């Protein structure tokens, strides 16, 4: 990885527009993170990111060519060079949207997020990351999320963070029961996210 690259934060946005709340959240994240240096946004729906791992990608997964799509190759080089990853997306059914899950499956492949050692064990490979953060809304209340477990948070703050070879900063912001949230609660949430990002 070229050490000359300036440090930047990668923001992965996975929400469908128009969505006033998420557009405001993405704005708050971008401005809040500006103190860390440049911010690069990947807006997965706007990019038309394919929401599934293709047969060719799966065939290459355990070989030498897990990446066949040029857009995925771009995203993978950004992911390898970024100093932070911040995910902005709605959680439905305790899970990130399919398009974001597909981003993990297609972009964070062997050689990018991790490498296989000689015993075919996974070894972490995201050496440059020092921050992983999530900003999300839930389609249900806190109690219902806790009953099943917060899948989005576990995937990003545990499974993804396991691919970073040291302990790094993490941050999680969630708005429970988004469909029933009053405008004031939404505004408060956006303001809280902006403050949280500015402290990272």
């Amino acid at each position: 990885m070229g050490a000359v690259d300036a440090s930047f934060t990668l923001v992965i946005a996975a929400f469908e527009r128009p969505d006033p709340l998420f557009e405001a959240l993405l704005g708050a994240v971008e401005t809040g993170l500006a103190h860390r240096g440049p911010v690069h946004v990947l807006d997965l729906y706007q990019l038309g990111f394919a929401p599934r791992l293709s047969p060719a990608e799966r065939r290459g997964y355990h070989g030498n060519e897990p990446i066949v799509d040029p857009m995925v190759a771009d995203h993978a080089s950004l992911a390898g060079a970024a100093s932070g990853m911040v995910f902005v997306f709605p959680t439905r059914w305790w899970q990130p949207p399919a398009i974001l899950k597909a981003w993990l499956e297609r972009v964070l492949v062997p050689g990018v997020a991790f490498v296989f050692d000689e015993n075919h064990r996974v070894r972490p490979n995201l050496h440059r990351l020092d921050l992983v953060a999530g900003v999300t809304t839930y389609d249900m209340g806190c109690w219902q999320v806790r009953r099943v477990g917060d899948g989005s948070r576990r995937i990003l703050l545990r499974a993804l963070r396991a691919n970073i070879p040291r302990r790094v900063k993490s941050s999680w912001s969630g708005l429970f029961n988004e469909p029933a949230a009053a405008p004031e609660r939404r505004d408060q949430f956006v303001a809280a996210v902006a403050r949280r990002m500015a402290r990272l």
Partner: protein
Amino acid sequence: MKVLVVSCHPLEESFSAHLRARALRVLSVSHDVRHLDLYAEEEGLDRAGQLAWANALVLMYPTWWSSLPAPLLDWIDRCWSARHRYPELKKIVAVTTHGSSWPINFVEGEVGRRVVMRGLGGRAHRRCRRRWISLYNLDRSTEARRRQFVEKVERELAGLA
């Protein structure tokens, strides 16, 4: 029983596809089986109708990033209604493979298992029976272990009731 099998793997030559073929054969001996292959891209299917029809749901998929593959998440998002229950659904079986070992999945929090067993299971019939059949460490498994797992899946599904 009316059994809906939902499978999700991109490769026809994969272990998952082999497992799926064996499972479908065993199930169709004594049940009315419908199969939804999320990688087949069939048009015009009434997926929500299929789900409402079923008494038993069998999900067959590889666990990636601790959870279900993206097309399966998309299927849940589109077909399951967030505010309704599925009282006709009395049995849920998940058959899955994990590339990594059990301890790694435990630490990561078994996201897929929780969503299927507690999440979807919680929306089914109140006494819905749930069965989790999984193979860990597929990436470093032996031929014998895989064969044993196929036999286990066949046994379990043959006794589905």
